[in-house]
């Protein structure tokens, strides 16, 4: 489903600084459906890797395939069609501040061209799933961190994507909320969606007991089927 093939990403140095190597010759494959965690310290290259999958960044070397589609060969004006196959959860939520929870989630369906009836049918279900039914008409600034992250997950999920990329979804949350979010992601995975979770949260990884890819200073140092957080 996702194939990372000898990918390197080097950010050029400015003002005489050395170039930064974010990823160095990374290769792995994710099949469908799978729950994969990408772990590593801050700066290990986890976010860069997710950005490369989403075609937000271009690799310096190597290729990224999504179902045999080379994602960096897609024209910029056509990228949106590819991105509709992926749901993304960002560490800083990236909810649209001028839209309510309901509108934020509905936006993705609107983007896909869903009818008003479909939106009215699906939205309450997803709000129930993430436990935000009573916060539907609040703006993001009126939600707590955990609620915002759940809204972001609902947005990533609503259009039934093939894959959900979650970049440090528990990064700004307390342990209780973190486990709520992880439980939600596991539930989504059990319903048949591939999850790629980037995190540096040791507790989370050790409870999951699923595939773990460990990055260190841009290099892939471990890829285990039932991994633990070891650095």
């Amino acid at each position, binding site marked *: 489903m996702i194939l990372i093939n000898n990918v390197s990403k080097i950010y050029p140095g400015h003002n005489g600084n050395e170039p930064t190597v974010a990823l160095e010759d990374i290769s792995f494959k994710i099949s469908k459906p799978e729950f994969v965690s990408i772990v590593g310290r801050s700066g290990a290259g986890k976010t860069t890797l997710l950005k490369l999958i989403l075609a937000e960044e271009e690799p310096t070397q190597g290729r990224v395939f999504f179902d045999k589609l080379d994602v960096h060969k897609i024209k*910029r*004006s056509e990228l*949106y069609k590819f991105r*509709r196959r*992926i749901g993304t959860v960002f560490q800083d939520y990236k909810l649209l501040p*001028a839209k309510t929870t309901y509108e934020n989630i509905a*936006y*993705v369906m609107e983007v*896909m061209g869903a009818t*008003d009836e479909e939106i009215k049918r699906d939205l309450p279900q997803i709000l129930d799933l993430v436990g935000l039914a009573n916060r539907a008409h609040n703006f993001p600034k009126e939600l707590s961190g955990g609620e915002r992250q759940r809204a972001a997950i609902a947005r990533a999920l609503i259009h039934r994507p093939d894959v959900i990329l979650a970049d440090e979804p528990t990064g700004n949350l307390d342990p209780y909320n973190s486990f709520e979010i992880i439980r939600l992601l596991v539930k989504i995975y059990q319903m048949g969606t591939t999850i790629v979770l980037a995190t540096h949260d040791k507790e989370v990884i050790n409870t999951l007991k699923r595939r773990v890819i460990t990055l260190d200073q841009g290099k892939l140092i471990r890829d285990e089927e039932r991994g633990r957080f070891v650095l």
Partner: protein
Amino acid sequence: MFISLKRIIIGGWVSFARNIGLNVGTIFVILMAVLLVSFLFIFNIAAGDLIAKIQARVDISVYFKEDIPPENIMEIQAEIKEIPEVKEVSYTSKEEALSNFIERHKNDPIVMESLAEVGDNPFLPSLNIKVMQASQYEQINSFLQESSFNDSIEKIDYYQRKPVIEKVFSVTNSINTSGVIVSIILGLIASLIAFNTIRIAICNSSEEISTMRLVGASNWFIRGPFLIQGAISGVFASIVAVVVTFLASYALNSKVLLITGDISILKIFLGSFLTLFFIQIITGIGLGAASSYIAIRRYLKI
């Protein structure tokens, strides 16, 4: 397609209503640009009227010898009228010239005394010629000098008036030219200010725009609501501009009348209301939507 269009329009309206504070600022700058365009529009019509009035006062007079009978002069008048460039030819007889002179100077005893001293009617019968364009006076002048009735002519006062005529036309031409140049420069400045304000407003939404791209929105689906917001600001700006232009024309009308004699800006406003409103609304919407379109481009590259 239709559902997307509906969502773009509703999305634009909702964003407009929710960001009303920021949009009032945008409306205000677009308003300045639209008012400027309106002012230049009215100014150009008023200046055109004024120029036409000044030009209408320019003419040349042909004085005939004393012994030429009025019938002959009438014939010559008819002949001159045939020339396509000639707008108007009027005949002033010896007697009319005298009575006009007396009428004009009746309160001036010295002039009247001198006239009495001359005794006889010293005035000559004349034809007063007006042409369509200033440049044609020279042609009329040479036509008269080469004509068959040149012998009957005592004098043509073209040469005495030539400097005045040329001065009037060069002044009016330069008013026209500088009007156009000033309009273009001020229009550009106003557009740039409006553009910059909208650019800053959109820059605040850059994060949002990139999120929209990342969740799979097409460029038009992102751009649309911003264009609609810009256009709505433009519509509001032009509505306010109409009211302000009306009030300004109403308030300044008497003062302008006093200076120019008979040019009423209120009349110009009412007379060309539809054209002016059309220009205002096109400027407002165009400026709002075009600025949004250009400003958003760089944020769609993610």
